[in-house]
């Protein structure tokens, strides 16, 4: 279902001229009012009026998370605080949090893009949405909330956590749409199975939008087959707006980016040059209509590629591939660059292995060692050591094939690794460097 045909199926030339108009306005607004950009443009002797084509975007500076931190609290704001109706912050593990502000029109925009996302999952005003994203400073909860309200669907603002309650709500209220992180969805599936709601008894769930962390096709298969629902990938980030930057349509061949509001580029994280469409690199996004905190060429650190071949759904906006890593999440072990997602993929290729793992990096004798702890699944458990050993070795071999590095795999008891109710924490780096 397409929420806004006019915007989502716009002919390319129309879209481009709309984007240019909005880009120029964003650059003007940022250059005139945002302290950070004002200074940066002055240092670079860059005149906002010199942006006359979409290609000129490469003249603009990148914005990093550090810039947002340095501007704490209001250094990225383009309007007086009296025009701001809502604030969100996202805290990093180090340093100050980042702050983004929304004007009334920004909140409207957010509701619009989220309505588009939820519509892709088939949501209408007749649906009951169980919103399992955290409400509060985290953007997930309220983003979905605004979209649901725009559609007129019934939203159950249950927020993250409280699994027992989630299961009861799902059963008693007959929830039809669910939104939460994919790892939490799998955790819910486990609990629903324990409660006897699955396979598919007494629940009406039909589809879900899952995001806020990296996940895989195998996880999608698992969510879909365990719940018997359609599981779509949603993307967004606090710095830009929150969830609602992009979402998959029912064809699940990449996430449609709402290009009338967000301008995507993919760059090489090493050379910082823009890459041709289709090539894999770091996603850079520019907001085109944000007023509170406009963002110019924000480096998302997410690794993806852009694709413009026509999609069967009829939308003309570009699609981004599922995120396969983070440019700053790369772990360097014995000089080899590794993405945790590669380890995950290696695990997922083996039948009966559950995608619950943790990576522990140590440096016992001046040499990095990588241990991958994997939860033993019920299906892996056998009364005989050699059967379990075979599984363990198979996992080690598969990881070695994927990352060209021999790692140690330890099997741990089921459900013993931390389940994230927000972003999954997969890597524990114990090296003292």
């Amino acid at each position, binding site marked *: 279902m397409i929420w806004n045909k006019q915007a989502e199926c716009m002919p390319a030339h129309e879209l481009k001229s709309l984007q240019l108009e909005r880009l120029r306005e964003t650059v003007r607004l940022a250059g005139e009012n945002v302290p950070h950009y004002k200074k940066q443009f002055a240092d670079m002797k860059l005149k906002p009026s010199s942006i006359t084509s979409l290609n000129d975007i490469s003249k603009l500076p990148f914005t990093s998370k550090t810039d947002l931190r340095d501007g704490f609290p209001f250094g990225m704001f383009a309007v007086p605080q009296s025009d701001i109706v809502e604030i969100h912050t996202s805290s990093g593990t180090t340093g100050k949090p980042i702050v983004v502000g929304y004007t009334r029109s920004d909140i409207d925009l957010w509701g619009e893009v989220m309505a588009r996302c939820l519509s892709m999952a088939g949501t209408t005003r007749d649906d009951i949405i169980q919103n399992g994203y955290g409400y509060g400073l985290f953007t997930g909860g309220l983003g979905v909330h605004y979209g649901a309200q725009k559609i007129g669907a019934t939203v159950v603002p249950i927020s993250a956590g409280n699994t027992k309650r989630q299961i009861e709500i799902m059963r008693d209220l007959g929830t039809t749409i669910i939104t939460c992180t994919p790892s939490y969805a799998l955790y819910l599936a486990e609990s629903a199975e324990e409660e006897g709601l699955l396979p598919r008894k007494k629940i009406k769930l039909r589809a879900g939008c899952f995001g806020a962390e990296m996940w895989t096709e195998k996880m999608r298969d698992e969510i879909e087959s365990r719940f018997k629902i359609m599981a779509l990938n949603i993307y967004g980030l606090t710095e830009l707006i929150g969830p609602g930057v992009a979402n998959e349509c029912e064809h699940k061949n990449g996430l449609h980016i709402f290009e009338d509001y967000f301008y995507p580029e993919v760059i090489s994280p090493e050379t910082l040059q823009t890459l041709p469409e289709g090539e894999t690199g770091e996603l850079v996004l520019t907001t085109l209509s944000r007023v509170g905190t406009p963002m110019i060429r924000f480096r998302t650190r997410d690794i993806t590629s852009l694709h413009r071949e026509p999609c069967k759904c009829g939308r003309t906006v570009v699609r981004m591939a599922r995120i396969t890593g983070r440019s700053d999440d790369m772990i360097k072990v014995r000089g080899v660059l590794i993405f945790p997602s590669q380890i995950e993929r290696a695990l997922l290729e083996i039948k009966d292995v559950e995608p619950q793992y943790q990576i522990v990096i140590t440096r016992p004798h001046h040499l990095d060692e990588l241990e991958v702890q994997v939860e*033993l699944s*019920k299906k892996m*458990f*056998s*009364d*005989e*050591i050699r059967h*379990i*050993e075979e599984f*363990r070795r198979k996992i080690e071999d598969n990881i070695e094939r994927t990352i060209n590095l021999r790692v140690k795999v*330890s*099997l*741990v*008891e*089921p*459900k*013993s690794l931390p389940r994230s109710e927000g972003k999954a924490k997969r890597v524990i780096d114990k090296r003292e460097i």
Partner: protein
Amino acid sequence: MKLKQISVFLENRKGRLAEALETLAQAKINIRTLSIADTSEFGILRLIVPDPDKAKKVLEKANFTVKENSVIAVMVDDRPGGLAASLRVLSDANINVEYLYAFVEKSGEKAVVILRTEDVDAGIKALKTAGIGLLKAEQVYKL
């Protein structure tokens, strides 16, 4: 003649074995015999208890990974070569022995050995045919 055995996965973590045994003790389950097979990475605790279903339930409730399977309780002469005779029977019948462990208590003058063959039914048949004494579950629990 099949005897139910409970197997428990033990992660290589301090105190995990004690936790498993405490769980059973709290449920007042009396362990008749046990064995532990382990590698440097993990271990498997194998147990013979009078109420295997209950043991499985309480262990699972305590978040252990548990499997139930069948083993054979063999009576062997308590003298040199007593066990070898039984194993000879199985190897002559081409039946693989996965593992075995002994009972502390005796059955009369005989020692009792718990034995797991790849094919449990075939193992029972071969041993019986050779006239080797096997114990029923109830007899094992009474030892």
